[in-house]
């Protein structure tokens, strides 16, 4: 169910891109939903005179399918690093020309090194933001059901007794087999990047044991549902949960949303700006990347989307509630518990998807 916004985006996007005029300079961006501050786009348009067509998706799979069909027409896309690994092998990305990126030096060298495991030598991608996968929860509704225990463990989702307690107020899980299975493996004390069939079976058994308590699997629906009390627990992305927190606070209905990176450790993921090999306007794409690398633009995006930017110069410009938010910029201790994902082989992907379908459909 990872396509709701994508469908809507595609519908809206089509109407926009049809209106493109030949002489005008255009940049076609395809980015995650709710993933940029609107000011950033309008400011870029004003400064450069390039008109931006902005489409959104909410899953790596949808992005990959579009790019793999070829001639997507997009100039700039933002895949996650572990998805990008295989896409690079398929040759769908152009190399990024660092000579056109005067602000490249603002990037955090440590983070570039981490990302290089998926994108060797950082040739094809420029870090956009990074984040974690964790537990978003409605503080009051969860406390009513599990008492005053701290929400700092995956037990809340992966232990059937606890999951059962929050089932009636709504438990949502990302519809992303690779990530959720990696988290389940990690919870079981196994290697999250394992491709061993026996390990996968164990993860499947764990997920199947909590499946009856899960309301739905979806990768973006939980943002608004968490904010308006439709669900009370979500296995989701940090920035999305914090956006829900923000929306709930501004709605003033007294809904308080918390985010926790469980102590067993969790996934860190990195989204990279990349230029498809067949992009019609690669220069405009470079201009946009360089624009985003400016400290004040990067800080503006981070302040708006509640995801961390890999821009060292942007740190002083962040709002206090973002910089000091452990959900956005976790402490070094918490960072040490995070792990990254590798791309899976096609054979393992098939096993994974099959296991995922069995889990979701409860058979």
């Amino acid at each position, binding site marked *: 169910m990872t396509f709701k916004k994508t469908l809507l985006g595609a*519908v809206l996007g089509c109407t926009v891109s049809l209106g493109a005029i030949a002489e005008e300079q255009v940049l076609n961006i395809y980015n995650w939903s709710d993933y940029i501050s609107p000011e950033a786009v309008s400011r870029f348009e004003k400064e450069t005179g390039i008109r931006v067509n902005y489409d959104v998706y909410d899953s790596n*799979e949808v992005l990959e399918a579009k790019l793999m069909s070829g001639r997507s027409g997009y100039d700039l896309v933002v895949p996650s690093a572990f998805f990008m690994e*295989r896409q690079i092998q*398929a*040759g*769908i990305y152009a190399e990024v020309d660092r000579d056109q990126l005067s602000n490249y030096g603002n990037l955090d060298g440590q983070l570039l090194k981490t990302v290089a495991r998926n994108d060797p030598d950082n040739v094809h991608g420029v870090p956009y933001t990074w984040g974690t996968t964790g537990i978003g929860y409605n503080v009051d509704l969860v406390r009513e059901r599990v008492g005053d225990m701290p929400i700092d463990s995956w037990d809340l989702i992966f232990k059937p007794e606890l999951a059962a307690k929050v089932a009636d107020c709504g438990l949502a899980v990302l519809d992303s087999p690779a990530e959720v299975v990696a988290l389940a493996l990690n919870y079981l004390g196994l290697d999250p990047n394992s491709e061993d069939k026996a390990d996968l079976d164990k993860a499947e058994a764990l997920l199947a044991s909590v499946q009856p308590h899960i309301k739905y699997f979806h990768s973006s629906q939980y943002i608004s549902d968490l904010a*308006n009390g439709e669900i009370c627990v979500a296995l989701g992305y940090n920035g999305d949960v914090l956006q829900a927190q923000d929306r709930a606070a501004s709605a003033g209905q007294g809904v308080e949303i918390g985010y926790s990176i469980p102590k067993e450790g969790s996934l860190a993921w990195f989204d990279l700006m990349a230029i498809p090999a067949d992009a019609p306007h690669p220069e405009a794409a470079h201009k946009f990347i360089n624009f985003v690398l400016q400290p004040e633009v990067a800080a503006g995006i981070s302040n708006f989307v509640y995801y961390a930017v890999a821009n060292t110069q942007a740190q002083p410009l962040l709002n206090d509630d973002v910089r000091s938010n452990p959900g956005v910029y976790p402490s070094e201790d918490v960072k040490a518990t995070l792990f990254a994902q590798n791309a899976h082989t*096609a054979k393992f992907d098939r096993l*994974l998807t099959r296991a995922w379908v069995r889990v979701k*459909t409860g058979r």
Partner: protein
Amino acid sequence: MNTISPSAPLATGRWRPSLQWLQGRLQVGRGLVASVPTLWLGLFFLIPFAVVLKISLAETAIAVPPYSALFDWDGAVANLSLNLGNYRFLFEDSLYLDAYLNSIKVAAISTLITLIVAYPMAFMIARSSPGRRVVLLSLVILPFWTSFLLRVYAWMGFLKKNGIINDLLLSLGIIDQPLTMLQTDFAVYLGIIYTYLPFMILPLYSTLEKLDDSLLEAAEDLGCRPLQRFWLVIVPLSLPGIVAGCLLVFIPAVGEFVIPALLGSSDTLMIGRVLWDEFFLNRDWPMASAVAILMLFFLVVPIMLLRNAQGRKEEAA
């Protein structure tokens, strides 16, 4: 070519179309009329079908596009490699059969309920005065003016926990706990029935409208009670409309993807969902194509046989 050129008869000075010329014209016209649907079918069905069939016989590859080529030319030898493994796999794994059977179940139940809901509506419309008929028919068609996707989203607003229906029932004191309606099978059936209702009403209306009143009067004169008259006269006469409407609802409902994905729960296993997973999660375009081809085969072939049998029966009668 001469026969279609009007210049020959015109050259005589007095324009008098010869019989031969007229016949030629007619033939060309007939050919033209027949060629439009043929062209349409070829362009929008057969060519895409051939492409999908081709992909279903390939193997996955990490490339753009992500499958192997069927033809391979190394300068001297042409190789044709057909991979039937995808089809074999479909029969080995029970998931596909389960999904297919469940899709048929959901589609069949929805079709039946749609028929039950649509029949009285179509009957009413057909029996009302011509002026009202236009209004009622346009009301049936009116929802098409908004995007189907937006209408399904609207249903989400109605059905969700803090949605319009729950708010209304709560404020009226009919319930004290919000009902769970979204992400249930109920919501899927509701969505399908709502969406496809016009496709059932319109063919039913067109047969019911032609219903000859004198036949009903005759039935009454011969002693039929109203219910009998309905079963013995009206239903058999509207059978073509019922069959057409049911097919128009059933066929797209089997492959329905958007409605179960938006309104259904994750355990609603339907073939459209399996296709999506094959394509997007496994990135296995050949397997996804094989699923699509087999679905078409198992769905369309029985229906075509049914139609043929029916056609023959009608001819015999």
